[in-house]
Structure formats: C-alpha cells, structure tokens
C-alpha cells in the first residue's frame, strides 16, 4: 500500500512533534514553546495515542490548534479497526505491554476521532529554505520501520534521500530523538517523542525545531518540561500499568526494551 502524500508550502522555521502517546500535558507545553520560538508551522508525525491517559484529550488539542498531521501506525490501526498497533516489536513482553496500551487507547478514542485519523496522509512534503523535506512516521518506505541513531548509517541515509527524492527525512517511531546530516542540509532527523522521556534518567520529553539559518539548515532538539507528576497521577487513576508510570517518573524505559539497539539500550537502566 502506498501512503498518500500531502504537499505543504514553504517555511522558515518548523516545529516537529514525534510520538505524543496521549501525553496531552507535554503537547500543550510543546505548542506553547513552538509559538514562543516563532515557528511558522508545527507538524505532528503520528502516534498520538498509546502509553498515556485519556487519548481524546491529545487529539482534541491537535485538532483545535489545527496542527497538520500524518498517520503513525497507531492512527493507521485505530482508523482501520485493526486488533493491534503494528508497532513492530519482536519480543513477547514488549508485545504484551503494547497490547495493553493499544486496547486502552482504542476503547477510549471516539469514533469521530478515529475517522479523522483515517483522513490523514501517510507522508507530507514541504520545504524549509531551499531544502525539500519529507515527513514520515517510521521511515519513508515503511510506517513502522525503526530508524535508530546507531542503526541508520550514512550510506543508507544517502540511499533513502535518493530513493525518495528529498533533502531531509523527518521521522519518529523510535521514541529517541537524533539527527545526522550526511552533508549540509541533507540527512535524517528523528524528532523523538513528546509522550515519553528519552530513556536517559531525565523526566522531560522532546520536540524538534528545524529552520533555515544563514542559508543552511539547523536542527535543534528542544527539551520539553511538563507536569510529569500530574501525568503519572492520571495514568494511575486510569489503571495503566505501573511500568508505564515508572517511566514517566524516572525517565527510564521499562518496556519496548528488546527492540533497542546495543548502544541505545546501554544508556538506559533496564
């Protein structure tokens, strides 16, 4: 299945929101930061739900603010009535927690929001300065392909850019932000996640700003501090797994571990 691509215009400074995972508190703060930093536009890269509480709150904020968005595997699954999230995990324990997350989100996402998710494109193209930018959820070739820093080598990045006729690929799906330009203005930017800390023992989450500065592309991963204790309270009240709450409070992942490459795994506690 070929993802539908939506064309957007030219921008100078753009905010990118990776997986939000129902963290409506971080989302509100991220939108405030993007405004304060003078972003011309903000794009959401999919996976609005999962992990966190009250999934409709996140979707309402995105829709009220008219944030243009692409589908993640969550939106693809929720809008098509799939039984699981197609996250792409390989370990039974990871899949166990992914299913809890998906079942919770599916039950609490309104039919109207699911239908809206079905209208979203799979890819967006825009320009920042002179550079062509392709937005996708996992990778340009697969919605649930993981592009990790330590597993996405430069020769492969060059191939992706060549195959998909773009200067920059902006993605999420891994939950860990990183970027690598293989030459000025050309490379991969992973916006990481707004929904969950980056497995580094710190409780803040991340958004990414890309702008043209002095004729070149500058990428900035921006920490987003939010009321994580309130999020943890809401997660407990909703009966979400203690493992998820622990991640919010400690900054270390407790699930989705098996999929982590050696380098990324070694930075966490579990």
């Amino acid at each position, binding site marked *: 299945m070929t993802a539908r691509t939506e064309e957007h215009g030219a921008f100078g400074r753009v905010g990118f929101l990776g997986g939000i995972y129902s963290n409506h508190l971080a989302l509100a703060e991220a939108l405030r930061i993007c405004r304060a930093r003078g972003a011309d536009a903000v794009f959401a890269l999919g996976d609005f739900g999962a992990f966190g509480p009250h999934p409709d709150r996140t979707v309402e904020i995105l829709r009220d603010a008219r944030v243009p968005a692409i589908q993640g595997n969550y939106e693809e699954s929720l809008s098509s009535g799939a039984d699981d999230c197609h996250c792409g995990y390989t370990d*039974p324990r990871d899949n166990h927690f992914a299913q809890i997350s998906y079942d919770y989100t599916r039950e609490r996402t309104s039919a109207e929001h699911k239908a809206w998710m079905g209208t979203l494109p799979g890819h967006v193209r825009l320009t920042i300065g002179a550079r062509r930018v392709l937005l996708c959820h996992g990778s340009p*070739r697969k919605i649930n392909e993981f592009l*990790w*820093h*330590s*597993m*996405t*080598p*430069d*020769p*492969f990045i*060059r*191939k*992706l850019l*060549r195959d998909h006729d773009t200067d920059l690929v902006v993605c999420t799906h891994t939950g860990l932000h990183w970027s*690598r330009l293989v030459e000025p203005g050309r490379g991969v930017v992973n916006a990481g996640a707004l929904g969950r800390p980056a497995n580094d023992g710190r409780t803040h989450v991340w958004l990414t700003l890309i702008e043209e500065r002095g004729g070149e592309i500058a990428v900035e991963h921006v920490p987003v501090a939010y009321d994580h204790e309130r999020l943890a309270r809401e997660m407990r009240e909703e009966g979400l797994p203690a493992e998820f709450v622990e991640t919010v409070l400690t900054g270390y992942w407790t699930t989705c*571990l*098996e999929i982590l*490459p*050696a*380098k*990324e*795994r*070694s930075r*966490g506690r*579990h």
Partner: protein
Amino acid sequence: MRADAPSSPLVALDTLWFQVAGTLCNLQCTHCFISSSPTNHAFGMMSLDEVRRYLAEAEALGVKEYYFTGGEPFLNRDILEMIEAALALGPVSVLTNGVLIRPETARRLRELSDGSPYSLDLRISIDGADAPANDAIRGAGTFDRILAGIRGLAAVGLNPVVTVTEALEGAGTREGRARLLQFLREIGLAQPRLKVMPLLRLGAETKRTRAYQEWESLVGRTLTAEEAEALQCSSCRMATARGVYVCPILVDYPGARMGATLAETRRPFPLRFPACFTCHEQGLSCRT
C-alpha cells in the same frame, strides 16, 4: 512435471552477511545446519581484501547493516580488522560461540564499538541454562567456556545477545523465555537480550533429528507480495569465499549461489528449497 516455486524479490539490500570463517568452527554442534566443524573446509576463510571489496559495493548500494558469521568468525585472524572496516560504514553483528573471546579480544571489541557511531552486537549461542543441556549439543566442556566468553564481554560493558535454538525444549514458549532471561541475569547480564531460533532440518541437524519431509516446501504454493517481502531474502545476501549466496542458510546448495558480486544478485530468488518453508512458516530471520 515439477511445479513452480514462488519467488522472493530483492526489495532492498539492507543486510549483508559475511561468512568470514567459511564452514570452519572450533566446535561441532549436533544441530549445525551447515555442519561446521574443525575439519569442514567446504567454504574457506574470506580475506580482508575480499571483505573490503564487498563493503565498497555495499556502501554504494546503501546497505543498512552487516553480519559476520562462519563457522566461527573469531577463527579468522583478520576478524577485528574486518569488524573495524564494516563499523566505519554501518552497524555490525558478529555471530559467535564466544569461546575464543579472551579478555584482550573483548577489550579490543569495546574500543571498536566506542570508535563507531554505529552499534556493535556480539551474538553468542548457547544451548541451555546448564552444562548437561548445552554440552549435549555443543560438546563436552563448552558450557563453561561459552559463559567465560559472555562474562568477558559483560566485563568490558558489551552486552551480548544470547541465542538459543529450539533444540532446547520449550525455549520458544513464554515460560521458556522467562527462564532463559532469568538465567542470563544470574550470570551477570543486567539487561539480558535473548533470541530464540527455530531449527533448520539441514546439515548435522538431519542426523540429530530428521531431514525436511516432502510436504515441507513452498513449491507449488503462491505467496502474496506481502508474504514474499516478509522473508529475509527480500532484504539480504550472504558473501562467502565462493561468491554471493541468497541468505545465510542455503550455502550448502549450489543453486543458492547468485553471483560473484552483489550487483549480480539483485534479482528475485525462487523459493524452491525446503528451508524456505521454515522461514515462511515460522517467520524466521537470522537477524538479531
């Protein structure tokens, strides 16, 4: 009349394997699907130059990751240089029995890992959580030697992926995995990583249990595009001292050799070998 086999397209060459030690191994496991042993010279060692030549071709093709296997890769005297050359271009996994990883080798591997932006994974095979189970398959005394290799890597902060085959009863079940993960924690791996592999009824394994039976075949079947693209041969090739094969499993079949260069192997592969059945039915991938 012989029925047609479905084929698997090469969607993208993401994973390039190197059979760096040929079929030579310091152990002789009873389930080895290519019958590697100290005396199996069917495939010879690859030279550093050969590896470099394939790496250059792979870089131009945008290969995403490299795997080194054998036989036992650490029997190749140039293995560390090969790993270093590959780590300059992408992430590397080395499939080993761990027995030859002495402390100074482990230290050097850590340096190579630290020197690259890409991940270096060591994948060590063991066949059970105790010596009797493991040694029955891998040979007398090997359990302790493998553990020494695992601990040597852990001691320098390299966290190996431990591979267990389904020769171990129940290894693939939820309980089996939980038991193995607990075992790995007990031997000092704080973040245990485990891969359970199905058995391939090839090579030595045909004597330990049985060979493939006639019904275990994809010949005459139709695969959807999605099914064909889920097979590892839609994204991998295996370089050996005797040319490039479709995948790491089928090297004992002359018909699985696809060319002398990677470019020559960029075409669909007919799934007419019995092991193709295992890959399809069990979703087998040799990747970590």
